[in-house]
């Protein structure tokens, strides 16, 4: 047995480190952070993710390994992976530990996109721009504290419609 990192650095720590939705030009349409990053780091990550994801095509996997700071205060790098899926001009990216289940998160993205599509009736990029504050609500219903909270589309949509009806 070898401990290579401390518990607080190693899994199972926060599962999802961040969720990003970007368009091809690199504009961020949603950024949800589950780890403490400062503003510069966030900007750097956004650029890095855009750079690694947009050069890939359909023959590539939907997974990219990247090296990031494992925690803010210790200058220690670790590998993470970005699991991403492209829908028209939008890239949906989730950053998780290298040991996490790739396909579960890949379908987690699709499940989320289907909910958005239903909620916004054929979602397009502009919906995410004009309703950015609602997108956060959708995210929080489905992912919380970096974990999957709810996976049933029916349940999520029912809840969202209920909230929509509130003043």
């Amino acid at each position, binding site marked *: 047995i070898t401990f290579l*990192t401390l518990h607080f650095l190693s899994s199972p720590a926060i599962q999802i480190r961040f969720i990003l939705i970007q368009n091809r030009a690199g504009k961020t349409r949603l950024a949800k952070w589950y780890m403490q990053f400062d503003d510069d780091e966030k900007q750097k990550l956004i650029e890095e993710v855009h750079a690694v994801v947009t050069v890939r095509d359909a023959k590539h996997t939907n997974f990219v390994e990247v090296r990031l700071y494992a925690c803010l205060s210790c200058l220690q790098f670790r590998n993470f992976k970005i699991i991403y899926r492209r829908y028209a001009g939008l890239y949906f990216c989730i950053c998780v530990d*290298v040991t996490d289940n790739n396909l579960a998160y890949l379908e987690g993205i699709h499940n989320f996109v289907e909910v958005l599509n239903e909620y916004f009736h054929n979602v397009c990029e502009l919906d995410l721009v*004009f309703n950015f504050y609602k997108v956060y609500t959708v995210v929080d219903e489905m992912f919380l504290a970096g974990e999957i909270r709810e996976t049933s589309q029916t349940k999520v949509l029912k809840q969202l419609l209920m909230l929509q009806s509130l003043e």
Partner: protein
Amino acid sequence: MPAVSKGDGMRGLAVFISDIRNCKSKEAEIKRINKELANIRSKFKGDKALDGYSKKKYVCKLLFIFLLGHDIDFGHMEAVNLLSSNKYTEKQIGYLFISVLVNSNSELIRLINNAIKNDLSSRNPTFMCLALHCIANVGSREMAEAFAGEIPRILVAGDTMDSVKQSAALCLLRLYKASPDLVLMGEWTSRVVHLLNDQHMGVVTAAISLITCLSSKNPDEFKTCVSLAVSRLSRIVSSASTDLQDYTYYFVPAPWLSCKLLRLLQCYPPPEDGAVKGRLVECLETILNKAQEPPKSKKVQHSNAKNAILFEAISLIIHYDSEPNLLVRACNQLGQFLQHRETNLRYLALESMCTLASSEFSHEAVKTHIETVINALKTERDVSVRQRAADLLYAMCDRSNAKQIVAEMLSYLETADYSIREEMVLKVAILAEKYAVDYSWYVDTILNLIRIAGDYVSEEVWYRVIQIVINRDDVQGYAAKTVFEALQAPACHENMVKVGGYILGEFGNLIAGDPRSSPLVQFNLLHSKFHLCSVPTRALLLSAYIKFINLFPETKATIQEVLRSDSQIRNSDVELQQRAVEYLKLSSIASTDVLATVLEEMPPFPERESSILAKLKKKKGPGAVTVELEDGKERGELNGGGDRGGDAAIAASNASTPSPSADLLGLRSTAPVSGTTPSAGSLLVDVFSEAGPSATSAGVNDDGFLSALHAPEASDSPLVEGPGDSDSAPPTVASEDPAPPLPESDELLNKFVCKNNGVLFENQLLQIGIKSEYRQNLGRMYLFYGNKTSVQFVSFNTTVSCPGELQSQLNVQTKTVEPLVEGGAQVQQVINIECLTDFIDAPLLNIKFRYGGALQNISLKLPVTINKFFQPTEMAAADFFQRWKQLSQPQQEAQKIFKASHGMDTEVLKAKLLGLGTALLENVDPNPENYVCAGVIQTKAQQVGCLLRLEPNAQAQPGEQMYRLTLRSSKDTVSQRVCDLLAEQF
């Protein structure tokens, strides 16, 4: 514009967003934003009280502006006001603003916490969820302090709505991860575990993440979750594709929950209860069977969801590593995926097979796929897939297929992507060494490696081939012959010249009988490369020449002439000049006997972990090295026994001075103190002789002649000891008195001056990790003691003491830890620290335990240093200089000039200065290259203001870069101590 109409409710916001989108230039956008900010500011400041709707709209606009990347410095109070609205939409925007723009403004946190408290007790599930999501998103310590007690109650209360339970579970998880000390599960444990039985699958999905995290930290308390998880899994796996209705995803029942259940089980060994185990094995078999069934849908979502479960099940099978039947079935399933048309599946199959290769039950089954994997290495389009194929070849390599795999990897190297070449080189070098049956193959492989990918052959690799050749006399003649032939190539890589020079200098005599490689021919061949090489290689060649004089007296005149030439003896490089002078003198005045003694063949190197392996571990990062580690026992076969230590070991310990750069694993491959490099240090000392003692290079003293000959061993840090290394046994002291602090404890302390978390100490038995936080004059440190063995530590006892004066300067309190640490377990200890007045020494930590009967007794310095009590102070340039002048008495200042031990990367420097705890002041120093910082050290007795200035001469050549560090504070001891601490960091 249809989208605008969708922004229902807040028309003003939609219009503003449209305006921004219509801006043609960045300037226009900024102008529009400034206009809006002015408008919002005036509304907020206006006499007329704003209604909730307007407040919501403006706060939402501010949020939008912030998300565009602009700073927002007002509106926080209005957002907080929205929290107490009783309208959902207003509350939601308030909470969203707080979650996105959280800052540690203390008055606000109190108000926010108040609002959260009200919502949590409102019994309105919508409001409760909003409040819980806010806590989960922010997760600050203040929130943990306020709510860690309340949330478990909400989670397990019988009347809590399902959606609130989901949020409460994950909210608690977040607080537990951020502040584990504040979340006390004790009385709730059993009820939380039973959430696995909840009727609502969403509650189970959320709760299981919490349970998994808690189980991984306290497996015993939560072990009842195993049987509950197995029965839940069994129900899902055996249900028909439509039974679970809402939770069926593309005909796959509850894929995410299944994955999470399988992952939870990976926190535990296989169930002991036969019935539970039987049920689980049945589940795993069913999952494997389903993979063979025809798909229920052609959609990729269906197969992805199904395979997500399959891969997680395979992970569990590998984790148990006890069911040969399942392991082999898993391997066969992955084998099918290796040829699947989906790149994702091929990638994942290669990755998963890598771990299967290390199981004794499936190793052989994995090996049958070798041809497919080799093919993947050659044909895959995605480099990350090729990388996985290379990893798998490495993992499946053993004696039976080593020659084939090494040959394939070598041929792949010729065209390999630059990004993975270095790693491939390391892997080839390791495999060649580990599975060498005859050493001529090993030598050929490494020389091929240098030929094909010389630029990627790191020092470790060529050091290693020399270590092995020196330790194995049956290969020395072959090695000499082979390098001699390799050097015939008109253009050969400098690394080849290094290996060639070293080996011919030691063993050239073994081939000198052949007139085609007579001594003079050998010398001329080497010398023909001399002028094309860099200084370190030329230094090495000079050492080879003096060795030639000893081996072949007939070359003496020729070589002396070379040494005497102006280009050597007057070389502008001090190291080369010094060698030429010393070697010339040595060869002229020493008798043959003396010469023979001084220039004797190198003694065998002590057995130790391959430095190449260490380098690969470092490159791949933690977690990727398990495969290599378990092979430790085999490695001993290759290079001589460990009993032939002797002189080389002493030379090694002299030559390798631990540097403060030692990283967590203690592998210093980035800055090896090799015999050839310290020369740069001696140059610096001459030039900067006024720089004081701190500039004295560690390498200077033993940097006389022949130091180049020690090169191969100097790469091993004394902190790293391989499993086979006999000197690496942890300190064993018979006495029960605390041992004196380890010699490296000061260095370990230095590693933590600018950071609070990391691994403090590690040997073969024990790892000690630290996490610490400081506020004002108080600190709290968590120590994590990890038992790396599979045997329990008994009588485990740790004490913290403050020697001498420190007793009256620091107040340190600890609780005792449990005396038993199970194999593989980690225990935590909390230490509370109060700084009474400024101090210099560090508290001592003594750890005693019995491992297999032997008493282990280790003392270390706890990394509590005065700078931990810094409060950063922001100030403008004028203030800074005024205070700087006020602190102008000589004793208030401490200054050091020292050589840079690391590169002068701006970001790294800044991170270190921030890590020190001071504020880094921008635009203060007229010279933008310099750094100035300010902070106040908080002690109980007094506050000590402290100013700092760091001046690098970044323009200097690497190796000659220097810093001047100046500290001024109101207390002389503080200036001196902070200066001493910080000077070690660069």
